[in-house]
């Protein structure tokens, strides 16, 4: 698999093995088992010292939530995790599987074929479970509206909705640049779009002035 897919999994930790360089274990979520690796260097780079003992807390038989990248190696799938957290509230177990159904439904729903560059301002590919955007502001340039729509789409993704502290501005900019280079999205436009959605109450700031979360769902 050439594409790196970000995933969130929840299940019971099994066969945990601690090595000098990494910790590996199998995650059993009831539908199957997948091997997971957590590299120590990632722990120290991403989380500094606060979470270096993250892997010491979690033990075999415990329910854990992991976030990481899905990789394929020699035909076998595995996850390289950047976060492994114990499940404290077990309603999260129910929620996780309901989310899986939700994401599956969203991925398989029929989507309108929007050809890039010929989208009209009113033809928003807004997901069925979202509240539609307000009418375009008179005099607004087409590209601004498109950027605003794409910014909101990022906040409305299921993976974004479940994050308690929402998304950092830089993350939104990074993701939009990657996905839509043809629009030459400038970070300034993205910041304007985030500010626009914040003013209208579509999103709200969470832990600081740089993190935002959708107010419409979740």
């Amino acid at each position: 698999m050439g594409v790196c897919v970000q995933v969130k999994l929840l299940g019971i930790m099994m066969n945990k093995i601690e090595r000098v360089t990494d910790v590996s274990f199998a995650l059993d979520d009831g539908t199957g088992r997948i091997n997971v690796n957590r590299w120590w260097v990632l722990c120290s780079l991403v989380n500094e010292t606060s979470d270096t003992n993250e892997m010491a807390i979690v033990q075999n038989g415990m329910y854990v939530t992991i976030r990481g990248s899905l990789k394929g190696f020699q035909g076998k799938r595995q996850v390289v995790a950047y976060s492994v957290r114990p499940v404290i509230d077990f309603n999260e177990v129910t929620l996780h599987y309901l989310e899986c159904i939700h994401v599956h439904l969203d991925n398989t729903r029929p989507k309108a074929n929007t050809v890039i560059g010929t989208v009209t301002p009113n033809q928003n590919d807004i997901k069925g479970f979202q509240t539609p955007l307000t009418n375009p502001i008179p005099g607004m340039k087409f590209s601004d509206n498109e950027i605003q729509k794409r910014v909101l789409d990022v906040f409305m993704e299921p993976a974004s909705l479940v994050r308690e502290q929402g998304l950092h501005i830089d993350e939104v900019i990074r993701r939009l640049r990657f996905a839509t280079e043809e629009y030459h999205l400038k970070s300034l436009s993205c910041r304007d779009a985030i500010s626009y959605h914040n003013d209208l109450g579509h999103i709200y700031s969470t832990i600081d002035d740089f993190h935002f979360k959708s107010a419409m769902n979740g």
Partner: protein
Amino acid sequence: MDTSSPAVFVNAELLKMHVGKRVRTVLQVARNEGGVMVGQSTDGQQLTVKGGDPKGFALSHYVEVIGIADGNQSIRAEICTDFGERFDAVSYNGLCQLANGKYKNLFL
């Protein structure tokens, strides 16, 4: 990735359809009778669980049981996990129905 032995989400009603197979359910502990746990399923019926954790779980706690369905109302446990006192049994029961109905292919 090994998907050879999935555990099906069940309540008491669905358990009957999976006798002999690996299942997972949540029950609220009513009593412990010498290594056998008796509890109420998320759809309000009585289930018995053999094996699992010999120390037993606190009464009225919700416990998740993963094991083999060995009867219409009984499970031979492999893994039991204490889900605590505050657990939404109604939502879990809804999940059991979805996982055995329209979205069965996602879970098996």
